[in-house]
């Protein structure tokens, strides 16, 4: 059997898996962005209860391993009568986990906006919501984009773990193919190559492009 005929026979399985991975990636990215912004702002809140809740959330999700969280959601939650679909469990776990890392990035970026910007918007008598939305967040966004680039790659890699709760993603398909064909080098090698193409030639250029566009829009670069 040559590699070409291997691809002809099983190529569609890789494509199916890659599609599921792509959807998992987009869903968990969406969730992570929402969670990161919500808890990132809460970390900076003047209300101590909100702040403590956010610190608790971030420490909890960063301190326990993603795989542990995934298995807990999948095996333990049903015991309390909450049964979630595999796919939903998968991106919930990944999104909540990576969102906790993202929250720290959001906090850091907002704090890095120069003091003068805060004072100037105060002097223009903007409301706190206006100040955040129009002055602080756009600048913080540009500052944190490079760090988000790394986080997004981590997120893609983390989605491979959902194969362990039987979501039929790329990792899962590769494992199934390996169990039936025993062609480990080709199956796992192909899957590795697809992940590599995803992160190096799709995600990284997209993030770079966003960085450039956003920097231009706020007049840096």
């Amino acid at each position, binding site marked *: 059997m040559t590699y070409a005929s291997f691809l002809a026979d099983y190529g569609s399985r890789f494509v199916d898996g890659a599609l599921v991975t792509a959807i998992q990636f987009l869903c968990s990215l969406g969730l992570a962005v929402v969670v990161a912004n919500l808890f990132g702002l809460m970390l900076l809140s003047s209300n101590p209860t909100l702040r403590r809740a956010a610190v608790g959330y971030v*420490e*909890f999700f*960063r*301190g*326990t*391993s*993603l*795989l*542990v*969280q995934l*298995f*807990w959601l999948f*095996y*333990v939650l049903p*015991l*309390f009568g909450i049964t979630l679909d595999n796919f939903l469990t998968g991106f919930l776990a990944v999104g909540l986990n990576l969102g906790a890392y993202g929250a720290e990035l959001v906090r850091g970026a907002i704090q890095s906006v120069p003091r003068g910007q805060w004072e100037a918007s105060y002097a223009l008598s903007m409301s706190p919501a206006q100040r955040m939305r129009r002055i602080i967040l756009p600048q913080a966004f540009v500052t944190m984009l490079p760090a988000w680039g790394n986080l997004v*790659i981590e997120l*893609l*890699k*983390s*989605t*491979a*773990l959902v*194969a*362990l709760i039987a979501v039929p993603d790329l*990792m899962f398909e*590769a*494992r199934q193919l*390996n169990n039936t064909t025993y062609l*480990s*080098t080709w199956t*796992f*090698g192909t*899957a*590795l190559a697809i*992940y*590599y193409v995803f*992160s*190096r030639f799709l995600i990284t250029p997209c993030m770079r492009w966003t960085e450039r566009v956003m920097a231009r829009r706020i007049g840096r670069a």
Partner: protein
Amino acid sequence: MKWDFAFTAEILPKMLWATGNTLLAAGMGYAIAAVIGLLFALAQRTPLRILTYITREIVEFIRSTPLVLQIFFVYYVGPEYGLYLSPWVAGMIAIGLHYAAYLSEVYRGGIESVPKGQWEACTAINLTTMQTYRRIVLPQALPPAIAGMGNYLVAIFKDTPILSVIGVAELMQAANAVGGQNYRYLEPYTMVGVIFLVISLTSARAIRWFEATVRRKLGMQ
């Protein structure tokens, strides 16, 4: 579903023993990563352009593909070429190489933070390249790298549960086994989460303290 304390007490010794294995896996993986990472970092600083280029590509590839897939790859591909690796050996190679790629970036950052004048001074007093690295550059590159190295120590610890996919007898594997035997998943998985949380929070504190101590000892503030 109610928490069963008798069951918790019964499985506690098993879980603690497995925690020992988890720590061992993290420690060994990190030791491998620390050494190979340094080789990766130094290989990118040689005058040989081709070596720099190849190492750079290897590091990028490892960093952009999922660890779980790399673990499967190392474990299953060996036998195709007559190389049978035990789960422990395969797991250590995979996790060691994965984090070597990350640590090489930390080292690179540390080495680049050493001022140019230090290199020139070494040339001026006729030190060999080996002496320059060992006595002047690396000791100064270390303190700025400690925070990053510490983060990856905690990260490698949190990634060890993934080793359970090839049957390394660490904490996650023990929880799976205990849960499967007794049809009780609440206690084992929750205990794994608590153990991870306690260890990663304490080690994060310890690393901050260690960094401060090293900086003080070397007279850098």
